[in-house]
């Protein structure tokens, strides 16, 4: 546990002192700020502020375009970079369990990604301070949903990062996986029968838009997001340790 904590602290610190991470964060805040300003300027949102959380945490452009792209960029340095500079092998042979390595890196990325959403939450505080009457259950519900979806995307990105030393493959693969998780269910959502039912049960924007951002906490959505995150973490662990299974 101590080794896990030490590694987690090291990863968080290395992110906090990485100019690249702050450039990412700055771009994230800029795009979110632009989106926030545009949406807030619309008649629809001004006539009912309850529409704002779904725009920013649900079916808006943010979820469809930005959210899948940022976690892979944050995660490439976690395994792919270590692999490239040759520090992964020493880490995996150090006296720390392999699953602790995976979890420490994952939770470090999660903690840093909370900063991403913290900035968005700041925009809602700004709105409240400017006289907007917000339904905080929807804002916080939407935020919880968006954070959980981000954690899922971080897990897929971590897995992609573990594929090898190629940074482009790590980042591109992670983004491709995330976009697949978003778009494939949307493509088959209207199909009848089992295919349509499966697609609807995996539809991330629906979880956000019709559940979390509407102030409704759905147990299945929670299980899906956490379960899928655990699955990708397990796949990352398998990718890293499987070479030891065959002498």
């Amino acid at each position, binding site marked *: 546990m101590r080794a896990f904590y030490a590694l987690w602290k090291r990863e968080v610190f290395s992110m906090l002192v990485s100019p690249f991470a702050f450039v990412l964060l*700055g771009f994230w805040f800029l795009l979110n700020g632009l989106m926030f300003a545009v949406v807030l300027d619309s008649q629809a949102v001004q006539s009912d502020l309850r529409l704002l959380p779904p725009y920013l945490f649900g079916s808006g452009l943010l979820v469809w375009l930005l959210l899948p792209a940022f976690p892979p960029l944050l995660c490439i340095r976690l395994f792919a970079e270590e692999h490239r500079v040759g520090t992964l092998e020493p880490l995996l042979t150090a006296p720390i369990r392999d699953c602790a390595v995976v979890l420490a890196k994952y939770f470090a990325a999660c903690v840093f990604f909370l900063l991403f959403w913290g900035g968005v939450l700041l925009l809602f505080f700004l709105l409240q301070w400017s006289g907007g009457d917000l339904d905080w259950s929807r804002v916080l519900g939407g935020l919880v949903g968006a954070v959980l979806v981000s954690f899922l995307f971080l897990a897929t990105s971590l897995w992609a990062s573990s594929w090898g030393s190629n940074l482009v493959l790590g980042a591109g693969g992670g983004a491709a996986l995330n976009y697949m998780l978003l778009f494939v269910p949307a493509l088959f959502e209207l199909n009848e029968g089992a295919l349509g039912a499966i697609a609807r049960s995996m539809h991330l924007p629906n979880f956000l838009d019709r559940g979390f951002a509407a102030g409704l906490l759905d147990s299945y959505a929670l299980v899906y997001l956490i379960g899928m995150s655990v699955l990708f973490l397990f796949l990352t662990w398998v990718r890293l340790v499987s070479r030891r299974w065959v002498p």
Partner: protein
Amino acid sequence: MSRRLRLGFLTIFAAACAIAFTLLLLYTFSRPGLRVRIDLSQTGTGGLSERTVSAIVQLPEGCRLTAFLFPEDDSLRWYNSTVYEQAFHRVRSLVEDARVHSAGNLETLVLDLQSPMVAREREMNRSERKPGEAIILESGTQRRVLSFEDLFQILRANFQDETPARIQRERIDAALGDAIISLVTGATLKAGIVTGYGQASIQDPQGLMGLAQLLARENWEPLAINGPADAADLDLLVFVDQKQPFLPTDLAAIQEWLAADKSVLLALGPNASPAAVNQWNELLADRGTGFEPGLICEPVRAAGTMIEGRAECAKLEINAERFSGEHPITMPLVENQRLLLIIGARPVRFASGTNDYTQERLIRTDKEAWVDLPNPNGFLYAFDDKEERGIRAVAVASERWAPNAQGRHGRIVTLGSSASLGPGLDYNRDFVTSSLQWLAAADRHASGLIGLGERPFHPDRQTLARINNISIYGIPGVTFLFGLWIFWRRKR
């Protein structure tokens, strides 16, 4: 076998096991019995009400709900109105809630303009959808259709002020609950709308077509009949205005109907024939209810003062304070702060009758109201010395203290306005729906009506500029500067 191949097989096997386990876990937790949805909203109205959920649970297997979210009424988009955006977001959320609560028995499909055209066409043809219909519920051969107006009460755009349309009230949960309950119960009651005494037609959109459609949605089969003599096997008689008194055969039939304690919805406005009014007063004498002459008027507030002498005085804006909080018809309206607009009403008598019946004043006026009596030039809409100000009853409900031997309650709703069930129906839909349920002896104990508070935000230019500056330049700028500082520190 080479090491690389064995490694590949082992990795794929481990990954396949993990995926299978995750799918099993998801399948297990997607089962309705294990699925929970918690409403976090401040008002507890983010999801469906308890009443609707308990109705959904009883739905038989294979039910289907199709929502058609098409913005078909252009006037609801004028002046940048956002009625459709708000309404559709709400429908999506509640339809999803219905699906989750349905124990797998309700298949839902939401179609909008972004849906593939083939899917839209296929569903519209299959369900025989007509323009304006927003939700179609199907169970076997039975179907219930909800129009956009059934789900939301809209305040239309004002051309003079150029103000956009907006959602005034929401009744999607109530309408969905009613439709599901009627699907679950299955049996359809028959309602006869009397049209043989100068009443409007049920085919006329300006007449009683809206009422007939509302009856159909509330699980009644609306039938146009000439008079009470044709109503032998019906469950409800509806009279909206009456220009002539009953013929002897119909008079005998209605006496027999009332004696059998069957239900009546009676709306006689100020233009009803006095002879017909007198007949009804005699028929209803033992219930202590009936109609009085004249037109109820109230002063209109305009430019900070109260104005009289205008036709608007006959449009009564009835707020929740003026409903009875004790009666099943009006209780949900009080709880949800509903507002009615009763157009052209005569006073309804609210006196003591025989001890066999109980009466309840459902809707009353303000104490400043008066009854405008007609003079040769018609109504003046102005208070004069011959008239008297005071509270008047606009609608009264009466029923037997206890059901008769056949289990009938003898329920009658008397309303002093016929226009409120005709062209003005949209303003009084909640009241009429609630009345029909009471008349069908299907009182609602838990209402599905939802009172929504509005959360508008109209910042001035300066406030908006400040928000934009902080969100676009402030927060990202500070972050970039921080990154630059770290870069500089690391370089040193």
